[in-house]
C-alpha cells in the first residue's frame, strides 16, 4: 500500500493498455548487473518489476529461472543483499514498483516480521512467496499489510471459487493468475480457456487488478493477454535474453531492455 503498484495499474488502464510486469532474478549474474538493470527496465517500459530472490530449491520454476537462481547463489546473493540493492536503487531515484518474488524458507530464516520491516524500509512495494498459499500465508499477509507492503498471491486454473475469494481478500496491489498448470518457462501459445479463467477471477476478487503470467514470452502473447487482463508478466524470456547476451559477451542489461521495449509496445488494447 505504498501506492506505487496501484498507481502503476491506474496509469496503464488510463492509457488503455495492460501493465507490463517484468520478472528478473536478483543477482543474475551479479547484484551489480541487477543494479544497472532496474532503471533500464523502467526506462524500457516495465510498469512493475518482479525481483526474484534466489533459492536453492525452486520447485515452481522451470530450467531458465532455475539456472538464473543457481548463478545468483553462486555469485553470493543473499536476501539482505537484495534488500540493500532495492534501497540503493530507490536512493538513486528509481520509481518503478518492485515486488519481491521468492520462496518461504529464506523469508522464514529472516523472520516474517523482520522481512516485512526491512523490505518496507528498503522501498519494496510488495511480496509474493510462491510456496505460501493463503492457508499458510495468512499471518504473513497481515504482517505485510501492517507495514504498508502489498501481499500478492497466486491463483491457478484449478483454484475453486472459494479460493479466489480468499485470495481476493488477502491480496493487495494485484493478484497473479498462473496461466496454466506447470512451472515457469517459455511457451509458444496462450492456453485455451484463459479468458474464462481471467473473468472468473475478476468476478471473485473485486476491484483488484488481475495479472497473468507463466509461459508468456513473445510480443504476440503479450498482445493476446493484454486484451483480457490488467497486467501481463514476462519472466523466463527476459532471463533467457540476459543469459544469451552474457554467453555472447554482450551486455545483458541492453539485451533485457531491448526485449522489454518490444514487449511494452504490445500491451495496448
Amino acid at each position, binding site marked *: 500500500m505504498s501506492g506505487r503498484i496501484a498507481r502503476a495499474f491506474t496509469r496503464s488502464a488510463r492509457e488503455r493498455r495492460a501493465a507490463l510486469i517484468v520478472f528478473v532474478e536478483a543477482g543474475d549474474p551479479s547484484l551489480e548487473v541487477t543494479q544497472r538493470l532496474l532503471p533500464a527496465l523502467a526506462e524500457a517500459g516495465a510498469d512493475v518489476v518482479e525481483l526474484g530472490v534466489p*533459492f536453492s*530449491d525452486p520447485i515452481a520454476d522451470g530450467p531458465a529461472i*532455475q539456472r538464473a537462481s543457481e548463478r545468483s547463489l553462486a555469485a553470493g546473493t543473499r536476501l539482505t543483499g537484495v534488500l540493500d540493492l532495492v534501497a540503493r536503487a530507490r536512493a538513486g531515484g528509481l520509481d518503478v514498483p518492485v515486488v519481491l518474488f521468492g520462496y518461504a524458507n529464506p523469508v522464514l*530464516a529472516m523472520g516474517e516480521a523482520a522481512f516485512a520491516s526491512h523490505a518496507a524500509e528498503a522501498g519494496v512495494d510488495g511480496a509474493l512467496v510462491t*510456496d505460501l*498459499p493463503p492457508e*499458510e500465508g495468512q499471518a504473513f499477509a497481515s504482517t505485510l499489510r501492517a507495514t504498508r507492503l502489498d501481499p500478492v*498471491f497466486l491463483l491457478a486454473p484449478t483454484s475453486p471459487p472459494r479460493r479466489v475469494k480468499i485470495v481476493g481478500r488477502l491480496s493487495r496491489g494485484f493478484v497473479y493468475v498462473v496461466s496454466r498448470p506447470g512451472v515457469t518457462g517459455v511457451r509458444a501459445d496462450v492456453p485455451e480457456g484463459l479468458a474464462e479463467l481471467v473473468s472468473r477471477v475478476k468476478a471473485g476478487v473485486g476491484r483488484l487488478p488481475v495479472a497473468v503470467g507463466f509461459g508468456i514470452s513473445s510480443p504476440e502473447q503479450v498482445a493476446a493477454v493484454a486484451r483480457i487482463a490488467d497486467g501481463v508478466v514476462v519472466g523466463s524470456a527476459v532471463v533467457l535474453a540476459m543469459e544469451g547476451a552474457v554467453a555472447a559477451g554482450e551486455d545483458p542489461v541492453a539485451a533485457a531492455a531491448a526485449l522489454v521495449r518490444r514487449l511494452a509496445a504490445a500491451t495496448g488494447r
Partner: protein
Amino acid sequence: MAEKFVVPEADASGRFGEFGGRFVPETLMAPVEELTRAYAKARADASFRRELHELLTTYAGRPTPLTEARRLSAELGARIFLKREDLLHTGAHKINNALGQVLLAKRMGKSRVIAETGAGQHGVATATAAALMGLPCVVYMGSVDIERQALNVYRMRLLGTKVVAVESGSKTLKDAINEAMRDWVANYGDTHYVLGSVLGPHPYPRMVRDFHAVIGRETRLQARKVLGGKLPDLLVACVGGGSNAIGLFHAFLADAGVELVGVEAGGRSAAPGEHAARFGPGRVGVLHGTRTLVLADDDGQILPTHSVSAGLDYPAVGPEHANLAALGRTRYESVTDDEALAAFHALSEKEGIIPALESAHAVAWVLREARKRPGSTIVIGLSGRGDKDVPSVARLEGLEGLAGVAS
C-alpha cells in the same frame, strides 16, 4: 497401569503441532486436496484395506519375521531383535507404501505414476507396484545417486520404468524431489506422485506413515509373544525422511515406557555439508511443502548433505518426527559413515544378514549403546537388505572385500 502418552494426530490442515502443513504453490493445492479426499475415502473403505492387505501378504511377503540376533545379543549383553523388512519383496520397507499409493492411484483413475528416489529402493518399489498394476512409471533420481546405486537403476529399467537423471543442485534426493514436484504440477490431471517418505505436503506424511504402520503393529504382537506378554524396552530405526522409523514406532507411541530412538546420518563430520543430522543443527523451515527441521544456512538456503547411504542423504525430516521430538517422546542420535560401515560388516559376519547401509546406521547405534543397557530388550528396524550397497562398499574399501571372488 503403564504410563500412556497421548498420541498427537495431524489436524485437518496437516499440522503435527507447529510442524507439517501444505507449503505448496497454488497450482498444487487442488491436486493435494483431491489426494486428501481420495485417501480419506480409501482409508475408510474396507475393500481398499482388504485389497492392500492381500497384496502385502501374497505379493510383498508380510508379515516379516522378528529375528533374535543371538550372537550379537551374547556379545552385547542385551536381547536384540531385528524386524526383518529386508526380507520383503524388492528388499526394503518401501514396498509397503508403494503398493498402498499405486493402489490408491488406480482408484483415483490416474493413468501414470511418478516417484523420486535416493537409494533407489523407493524407485524400485514404485516401479514394481506400477508393473504389477499396469501403470507407466517415471522415476527421478539425482545423477550422484544413479552412480552409487547402479544396480537399482538397472532393476527399475528391467521393471519397465523410465529413470530420469536429475542434474540440478546437489544431484541427490532433494533435487529428485524438486523434479518430481515439477512434473506433478504440470501433469496432475492423469498423474499420481508416489512420494517415498513421510515428507511433503499434507496428506503425504500421514498417509505414508499409515502405510508403514503395519511394521510396528506386527512387531508389537511378535514381541509380546517372545517376551511373555511384555513390550521391548527400546526401538531403534534409521531416519532419512523417517518412514521406516515412524512405521516401527507408531504402534508403540502411546506406550510411554517404550523408548524410541531414531538414528540419523552423521556422515564424515559435524561440519555443514558433511552430514545429514537434522536434529541439533537443524532449524525450523520449509522444504518440499512441509514445515519441519531443515539443514539450512543463515540465509535460508538449503545446505548440501553427505551420507555414505543415499537413502539418508536428505536435509529435512518428516514433520511428525520433529513434533514427537519437540514433545520429548522420541529421541534422535547420529552415527558416522565409518560406524555404519563397521555395523554393515558386523551384522553380516555375526548374523549372516547383510543390511542396507541405511539400516546399518540403526545397527551401529545399538552396537555403541547396548552395553550401557545390560539385560534390556531392543528391537532394531532392519529397513532393507544390503545387496544394492555391496558394489559401493567394495569400491570404498578398495575392493578388499571382493578379494576372494575377484579374478
